[in-house]
C-alpha cells in the first residue's frame, strides 16, 4: 500500500486526524487479516494471481472509503466482498480488449457465484462446527503444500500467500537469489493452475501423507518469525502466532497424529522465551543468560502437557523429540540446572530419525555442555571438515563460544570473525561483534 490516504480520498470534507487514525487501523487489519482474505478470495476466484490483485484493490478501496463512510461492522467480510467485485472489474477490463477464453470463463463463473452470493461463501463457513472447514487458510496451506510441487516451492508459496512475506525475504531465508525465488513462485502458481491442483483439504485417506509437508512448512514459518533472516526485527510475533495458530488447527484436525501435537508443543516452548530473548535495546540474550522469570508460564504449561502427550505415542517423531529437548530447558529453574546429558541423548535420537548437519551441530554443543568444551570443539572440527555447513554462521559462532569458555581468546576471536563474515541478521551481527570485542580485549 504505497499510496497515502490523502491522495486516495477524493471529495467530501475529511478530518485529517480521522484519516490518519483510519489508515493505522486499516494497516493493522491488513497485517492481521490479509492472508485470510487472500485465502478466501483464492477459493472464490479460483486463481492465485487474480486473488492477490483483488486483495490489494480491496484494501485500496478501504483506504478511500472507510475514512468517509465509516468502518464496516465486519471488515473482513467487506474486504472479501469488495475484492470479489474488484476481480470482476479486473476481468471485465481485460476481456474487453482481447477475447481471452480462460478469463472469460472465469468471469462467467464468478458472476454466477456472485448472483447466488451465499454469506457463508464469503466468511469461509466460519459457522461450521467442523474445524477442517472453518478456515480457508487451512485449505490454502494444503494446496500450497501439494506433493506435486517441489518442496522448496511449497514452502515459498506458503510464506508468500499465508504469511505475506516478500519474495526477497523468502529468498534470503532460503539462501537463494531473489530472481530464482520469484521464478520458483511463478512456476508453482502456473503448475497449480495448468495441472489443475485442487484447492481443498485432502480427504481422510490422504491426510496423513500430506501432513508431513504441511508440518514442515508450518515449522519453517515459525522459524522465519523466531529468527528472521534479515533486518532489525528479530522476533516477528505475528509470524510465530500464525504458525502456532496453524499448528493448533492441525492438531485439532488430526487428533490421532501425535506429531501435530509435538510440533505445536515445540513452537509453544520456543515462543515462551520470546520476552527474555532480547534486551530493551534489541540485543540478543542467550538462553543461559535469560531472565527465566520472563518466560511465558502459560505457554510452557501447555507445551509440556502437549510434549508428554506426543511422547506417549510410540514411536515419537522428530518434532516430538525436539519438543522434548525444549521441555528440558523449560523445566530447568536456572541455566546451571539444565540436564545437558538428557539433551545430548535426545539429540542422538533426533539424529537417527532425521540425519542433518545442523542437528549434529546442536548435538556437539549439548555434548560440550555435558562433558566439557574441548570434546565439543573436536566434534565441531569434524563437522567443519565435512564441509556441509559451509556458509552457516552458527558453526563458527559455536566454536567461538566453546573457545571462549576455555578462555582460548585467540581462537575465539578467529571464529567470531569468521561468523561475522557469514551472518545476515543485524541483531546477531551485533551480538557476534560484542563477543569478538571481548575476545580481542582479553588477548592483550
Amino acid at each position, binding site marked *: 500500500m504505497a499510496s497515502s490516504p490523502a491522495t486516495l480520498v477524493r471529495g467530501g470534507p475529511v478530518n485529517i486526524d480521522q484519516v490518519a487514525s483510519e489508515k493505522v487501523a486499516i494497516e493493522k487489519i491488513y497485517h492481521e487479516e490479509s492472508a485470510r482474505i487472500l485465502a478466501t478470495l483464492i477459493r472464490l476466484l479460483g486463481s492465485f494471481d487474480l486473488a492477490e490483485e483483488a486483495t490489494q484493490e480491496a484494501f485500496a478501496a478501504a483506504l478511500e472509503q472507510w475514512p468517509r463512510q465509516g468502518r464496516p461492522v465486519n471488515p473482513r467480510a467487506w474486504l472479501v466482498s469488495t475484492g470479489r467485485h474488484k476481480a470482476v472489474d479486473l476481468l471485465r477490463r481485460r476481456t474487453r480488449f482481447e477475447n481471452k477464453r480462460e478469463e472469460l470463463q472465469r468471469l462467467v463463473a464468478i458472476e454466477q457465484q456472485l448472483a447466488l452470493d451465499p454469506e457463508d461463501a464469503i466468511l469461509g463457513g466460519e459457522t461450521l462446527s467442523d474445524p477442517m472447514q472453518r478456515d480457508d487458510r487451512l485449505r490454502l496451506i494444503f494446496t500450497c503444500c*501439494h506433493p*506435486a510441487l517441489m518442496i522448496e516451492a511449497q514452502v515459498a508459496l506458503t510464506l508468500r500467500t499465508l504469511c505475506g512475506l516478500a519474495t526477497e525475504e523468502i529468498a534470503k531465508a532460503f539462501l537463494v537469489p531473489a530472481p530464482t525465488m520469484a521464478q520458483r513462485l511463478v512456476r508453482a502458481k502456473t503448475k497449480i493452475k*495448468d*495441472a*489443475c*491442483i*485442487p484447492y481443498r483439504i*485432502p480427504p481422510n485417506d*490422504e491426510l496423513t501423507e500430506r501432513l508431513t509437508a504441511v508440518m514442515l512448512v508450518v515449522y519453517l514459518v515459525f522459524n522465519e518469525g523466531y529468527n528472521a533472516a534479515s533486518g532489525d526485527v528479530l522476533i516477528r510475533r505475528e509470524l510465530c502466532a500464525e504458525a502456532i495458530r496453524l499448528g493448533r488447527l492441525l492438531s485439532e484436525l488430526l487428533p490421532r497424529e501425535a506429531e501435530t501435537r509435538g510440533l505445536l508443543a515445540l513452537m509453544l516452548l520456543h515462543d515462551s522465551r520470546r520476552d527474555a530473548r532480547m534486551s530493551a535495546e534489541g540485543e540478543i540474550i542467550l538462553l543461559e543468560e535469560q531472565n527465566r522469570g520472563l518466560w511465558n508460564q502459560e505457554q510452557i504449561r501447555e507445551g509440556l502437557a502437549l510434549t508428554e502427550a506426543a511422547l506417549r505415542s510410540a514411536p515419537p517423531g522428530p518434532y516430538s523429540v525436539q519438543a522434548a529437548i525444549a521441555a528440558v530447558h523449560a523445566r530447568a529453574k536456572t541455566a546451571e540446572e539444565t540436564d545437558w546429558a538428557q539433551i545430548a541423548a535426545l539429540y542422538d535420537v533426533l539424529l537417527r530419525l532425521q540425519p542433518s548437519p545442523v542437528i549434529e551441530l546442536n548435538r556437539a554443543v549439548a555434548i560440550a555442555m555435558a562433558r566439557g568444551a574441548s570434546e565439543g570443539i573436536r566434534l565441531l572440527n569434524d563437522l567443519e571438515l565435512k564441509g556441509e555447513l559451509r556458509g552457516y554462521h552458527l558453526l563458527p559462532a559455536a566454536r567461538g563460544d566453546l573457545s571462549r569458555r576455555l578462555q582460548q581468546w585467540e581462537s575465539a576471536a578467529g571464529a567470531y570473525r569468521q561468523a561475522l563474515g557469514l551472518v545476515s541478521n543485524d541483531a546477531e551481527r551485533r551480538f557476534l561483534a560484542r563477543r569478538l570485542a571481548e575476545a580481542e580485549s582479553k588477548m592483550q
Partner: protein
Amino acid sequence: MQYLLLIYGKESDWTKLSAAEMAKMDQEYGAFTQSIAKSGHLRGGNQLDTISKATTVRMRDGKRLVTDGPFAETKEQLGGYYLVEAKDLDEAIGIAVRIPSVRSGSVEVRPIVPHEMPS
C-alpha cells in the same frame, strides 16, 4: 480437464513374465480399463510395442535421419498410455495409482494443453 497417463517400466521385466503372469496382468488391465470406461474417465489408451521395434526420425538441413531405437535410452521405457478426463490433478493421480504397472514401474501424469482440433 484431460490428462495423459504415461506408463513407464523396465521392458526387460515385462518380457520376463511367464504366460500365467502375463494372463493375470492382461486381466488386471482389462478390469482397470473397463472400470474407468464405466466411470466416464476413459478417453483413450494403448499398449506400446517394445522399444526394439521403435524408430526415431529427425529432419536436419532438409535431410531425413532415421535411426533404430527410441528417442532416448532410459532405465524405464514408455510402455503404454491412457488418456483420461478428470476434474483435477488429485482425481487424475487417483486414477493413475490404480494402473496395474504402477506397482513395479511409474506413471507420469501430464495435463493436456487444450487446442482446437480440426474435425
